[in-house]
């Protein structure tokens, strides 16, 4: 077994979650890497959908942006932006949404808007993009992001995208059709929503990571499963394909 990085484990774990999915609405950065890895490895028929309107993109290298010419050239169809959101995303036609964020809370709500106050932020982030409707409409959502006390926070500086809102039942009260974030994958482990509280609960540790490592990188009182499992180590094939994807790209994997 080759040596691997924590980022590689995270990306590979995210790609495994796409097994069996028909279509995935892909955010740029880590989600795009994971989705392209899934298509290269175990799900060659996976339909990649980007918010630029490219449906069924089959890029041969990782795109730097969601609107790269490679995505349009290799797509089954390219539609306008109103169409991609109104006809394709909103009715729940895309199985899985995969998103990153700057901050996440215990209910998998996401912040991509500001660090600090809205009117005078310490860091102004890009904003919502397509994420809020992806998280609302897709039947299933996967969140992928690096974990630290700065990113896994008790209270978001801004609630850009609803995961489970204030907990159980919130999504149906808010009229959200999809089931919400069914998995949150960090570079330390994997979290899944508790069936009764909807709180993201540590279920799996990545190889070499301890429970204490995760607890110390979580900004809230961490809920954990009674039977924590370990992420299977990346296979040589997974690592090889992932590294080939990165080698053929100028993308830095920014979130």
């Amino acid at each position, binding site marked *: 077994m080759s040596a691997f990085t924590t980022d590689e484990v995270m990306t590979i774990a995210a790609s495994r979650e796409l097994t069996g999915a028909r279509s995935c609405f892909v955010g740029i950065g880590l989600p795009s890497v994971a989705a392209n890895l899934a298509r290269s490895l175990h799900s060659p028929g996976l339909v990649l959908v980007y918010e630029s309107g490219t449906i069924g993109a089959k890029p041969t290298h990782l795109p730097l942006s969601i609107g790269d010419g490679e995505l349009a050239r290799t797509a089954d169809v390219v539609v306008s932006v109103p169409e991609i959101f109104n006809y394709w995303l909103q009715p729940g036609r895309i199985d899985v949404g995969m998103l990153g964020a700057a901050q996440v809370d215990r209910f998998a709500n996401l912040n991509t808007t500001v660090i600090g106050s809205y009117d005078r932020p310490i860091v102004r982030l890009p904003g919502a993009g397509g994420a809020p409707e992806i998280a609302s409409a897709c039947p299933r959502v996967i969140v992928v992001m690096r974990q630290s006390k700065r990113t896994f926070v008790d209270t978001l500086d801004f609630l850009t995208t609803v995961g489970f809102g204030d907990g159980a039942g919130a999504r149906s009260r*808010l009229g959200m059709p999809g089931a919400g974030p069914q998995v949150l994958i960090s570079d330390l482990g994997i979290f899944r929503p508790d069936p009764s509280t909807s709180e993201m609960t540590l279920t799996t540790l990545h190889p070499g990571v301890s429970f204490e490592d995760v607890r110390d990188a979580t900004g809230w009182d961490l809920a954990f499963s009674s039977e924590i499992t370990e992420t299977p180590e990346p296979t040589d094939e997974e690592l090889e394909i992932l590294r080939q994807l990165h080698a053929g790209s100028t993308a830095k994997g920014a979130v």
Partner: protein
Amino acid sequence: MAEFLSLESAIAANVHDGDMVALEGFTHLIPFAAGHEIIRQRRRDLTLVRLTPDLIFDQLIGAGCARKLIFSWGGNPGVGSLHRFRDAVEHDWPRALDLDEHTHAGLANRIVAGAAGLPFAVLRAYAGTDARAHSSTIASVTCPFTGEILAAVAALRPDVTIIHAQQADRAGNVRLWGITGVQKESVLAAARSIVTVEEIVDEFSDDRNAVVLPSWTMTAIVHVPGGCFPSYAAGYSERDNDYYEAWDHLSRDRAVFEDWLEREVFEVGAK
């Protein structure tokens, strides 16, 4: 009917201080040359509109042209922050920038409502988010048929929309293809419009399901080959990803940016 004009004349005649100006393009076909001409003509107090403000908006904001930004995602795609945008929001440099921020779906639907001549659009969005508290153009509406509570977003009608397209024919009809974003709707929503094009052709080939904007829906057509560099025009050019990565450095420091602005925009002059 749209007039064929020089870029300088088209901007001078159609973009005024205080106007709401949409420069659309979703990674593809971004009207950089027109944005640079707005900077050269030193327009001020603009309300800039775009779903995905990227480098050209960073440049317009850093040059002091904008008072307000209506947008849904402001970053350098795949690279990181827009440093001039951040400096304006975080430190009011070169001036304070008001924001009206939406999701892509929300802003796209505002423009669709503008194009459709309706006062607002309906979509399933914004519930439970902090966005509503910071925007006066997001509200709720109850469906009269099902009782479902949905988001309502106010129609957006720019004073002028500027886009870049692949082709115009000699009658001034415009055709664009590939990733077409929300450009057609933005032109139809606006009071005036300027389209810069890669090429003027005798007639369009009919082998693609491309977006065609009839001449009478636009104000001005300008022949500006390469007018979307460093973005790209499918069939004409490739995206210059290195430029987007270099911008991260060029835009980080105010003095470096101002030097860039002087050399690459003001000294270059209109094409």
